[in-house]
C-alpha cells in the first residue's frame, strides 16, 4: 500500500483492530511529526494498549494501514522494527538474568553495533551500572522500570511507544523518564497515560480514544485535511 510520507513519524489511516466481532480500535486516523511528544489518553479498555501494539508490529491490523517514518507496518522489515522502541507496563525482563545479561540478549536480537559500550552508557544513565551483575528479581519495581527503559532505548529507536510509563516509577525514575525520553530531541514519543495532571508538563499534543474511536486530536497535524481525505481512499475490508 502506497502513501507513506517520510516526513511524518507515525501515521495511521483507518487503522482498525477487531477481535472476533468486537472492534477494539476503530478506524483511527492521525499523523505525528518527527520529534513530537504526544499523550495517548482514554479510559481503561478504550483501546490504548491495542493501538500501541499495532504500532509496535505486535498486533496485526484487521483493516487500514499505518506507517513509521514513511514505511508501511504491513509485513514489517527488520530495519523498520529497529526504529521502534517499546516500554510496556510489564518490564519485559528475565528475572533470573542479570541487568547486563538482559541487555546483552536484546542487543543481540536487535543487532546493536558496539553493544558493550552502548549497554554501559545506558546502564550508567539509568543508575544501574554498579548493580549490572545482579539478577533482576532482586531489583525494586522502580529499578525494574529503569532497566526496562534502558532496554527500550538500547537500539536507539526513532519512535518510542510507552504504555503507562509512570506506573511503578520512583521519583528518580520519573526524572529519568523526563530527561531520557520526554525531553529528548528528535525522539518521537507516543505515551499512553491516565495521569492527565502530568501530561501538560511534557506533551505537545494529545490523542484521546473512546471505545476504540479517536475522539480528540490536539496534535500539530491534528486538523490537517490530508488525513481526512486519505482515510476515505483506503479500501475497506479485512486484509
Amino acid at each position, binding site marked *: 500500500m502506497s502513501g507513506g510520507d517520510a516526513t511524518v513519524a507515525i501515521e495511521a489511516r483507518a487503522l482498525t483492530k477487531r*477481535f472476533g466481532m468486537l472492534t477494539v480500535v476503530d478506524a483511527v486516523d492521525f499523523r505525528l511529526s518527527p520529534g513530537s511528544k504526544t499523550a495517548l489518553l482514554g479510559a481503561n479498555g478504550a483501546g490504548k494498549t491495542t493501538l500501541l501494539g499495532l504500532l509496535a508490529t505486535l498486533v496485526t491490523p484487521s483493516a487500514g494501514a499505518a506507517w513509521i517514518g514513511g514505511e508501511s507496518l504491513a509485513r514489517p522489515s527488520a530495519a523498520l522494527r529497529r526504529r521502534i522502541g517499546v516500554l510496556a507496563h510489564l518490564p519485559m525482563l528475565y528475572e533470573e538474568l542479570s541487568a547486563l545479561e538482559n541487555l546483552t540478549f536484546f542487543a543481540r536480537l536487535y543487532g546493536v553495533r558496539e553493544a558493550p559500550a552502548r549497554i554501559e552508557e545506558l546502564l550508567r544513565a539509568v543508575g544501574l551500572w554498579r548493580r549490572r551483575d545482579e539478577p533482576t528479581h532482586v531489583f525494586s519495581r522502580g529499578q525494574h522500570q529503569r532497566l526496562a527503559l534502558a532496554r527500550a532505548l538500547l537500539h536507539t529507536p526513532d519512535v518510542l511507544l510507552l504504555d503507562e510509563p509512570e506506573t511503578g516509577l520512583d521519583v528518580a525514575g520519573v526524572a529519568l523518564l523526563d530527561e531520557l525520553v520526554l525531553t529528548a530531541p528528535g525522539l518521537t514519543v507516543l505515551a499512553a497515560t491516565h495521569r492527565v495532571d502530568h501530561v501538560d508538563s511534557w506533551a505537545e499534543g494529545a490523542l484521546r480514544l473512546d471505545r476504540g474511536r479517536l475522539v480528540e486530536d490536539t496534535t500539530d497535524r491534528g486538523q490537517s485535511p490530508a488525513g481526512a481525505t486519505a482515510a476515505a481512499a483506503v479500501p475497506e475490508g479485512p486484509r
Partner: protein
Amino acid sequence: MNVPRALTAAVHGVYGLRWLVLPPATAIAMFALLVGAVIAAPREIVEGEVQRLMYIHVPSALMTYLAFGITFVSSLIVLWKRDMRWDAAARASATVGVIFTAITLATGAIWGKPIWGVYWAWDARLTTTLVLFLIFSAYLLARAVAGPNDEQVARYAAVFAVIGALDIPLIHMSVSWWRTLHPQPIVFRPLDGPALPDEMLLVLMIGFGAIFLLVLWMTSLLTDAERLAQRTEALRARLDREDRG
C-alpha cells in the same frame, strides 16, 4: 473480478437455502434409512440382526472424514484470512466429526462382540479411528478454554487441527506396521464385504446419503450456533465498555 463474485454469490445463495432444504431432506433420508435398515433389508444369514448396524456404521465412518475435512479446510482459512466465521465452522464440524467417530466406534464394538467375539480389536483401521477421536476431542477441549471471540486461541486451535489432520497418514502407517506383529482376529471379516446383495447395497447407499445430509445439517446448525455465541459475547463486551465509559 466478476466470475469469483458471481461464484461467491452462488455459494452464498445455496448456503442461504440451508434452513429450507436440509431439515426436510435429512428427515426424509433418515426415515428411509431407518425403514430400510430395520424392515426392508433382508436378515443376514450368518451374522443375524446385528448386521443391520452396518447401515449406520459404514456411512458414519466415511462421513467423519467429511466432517474433519471441513475442520481442516476451515482451519486453514482461519489462519490465512483471520476470519472468525471459519472458526465457527471449524468448531462445528469438529464437534460433528467427534460425535460420528463415537457412533462409529460404538456401533463397531456392539457388532464386534457377537461376530469377532471381542468388543475391541487393535486393528489398524479401528486404532486410527480411535486416535482421530482423541485428537479432535483435544481440539474441542483446547478451543473451549477461551471465549468464542478469542482470536489467538482460535488460531492456536486451527494450527492444532491442521497438524492433527496431517498426522493421520503417519498414524495409519505406524499403526498398521505395529499390528503386523500380532495375529489378526481369526473371525475377522471385512464389514463391507464385496459380495453384497442388491437390497443391502441399496439400503447402504441410502445410508450414505442420509448420514451425509445429517452431517451437513448438524454442521450448519452448530456453525450458526457458534456465530450467535460470538455475537452474544461481542455484544456483552460492548455493554461492559459502555458501562465503564
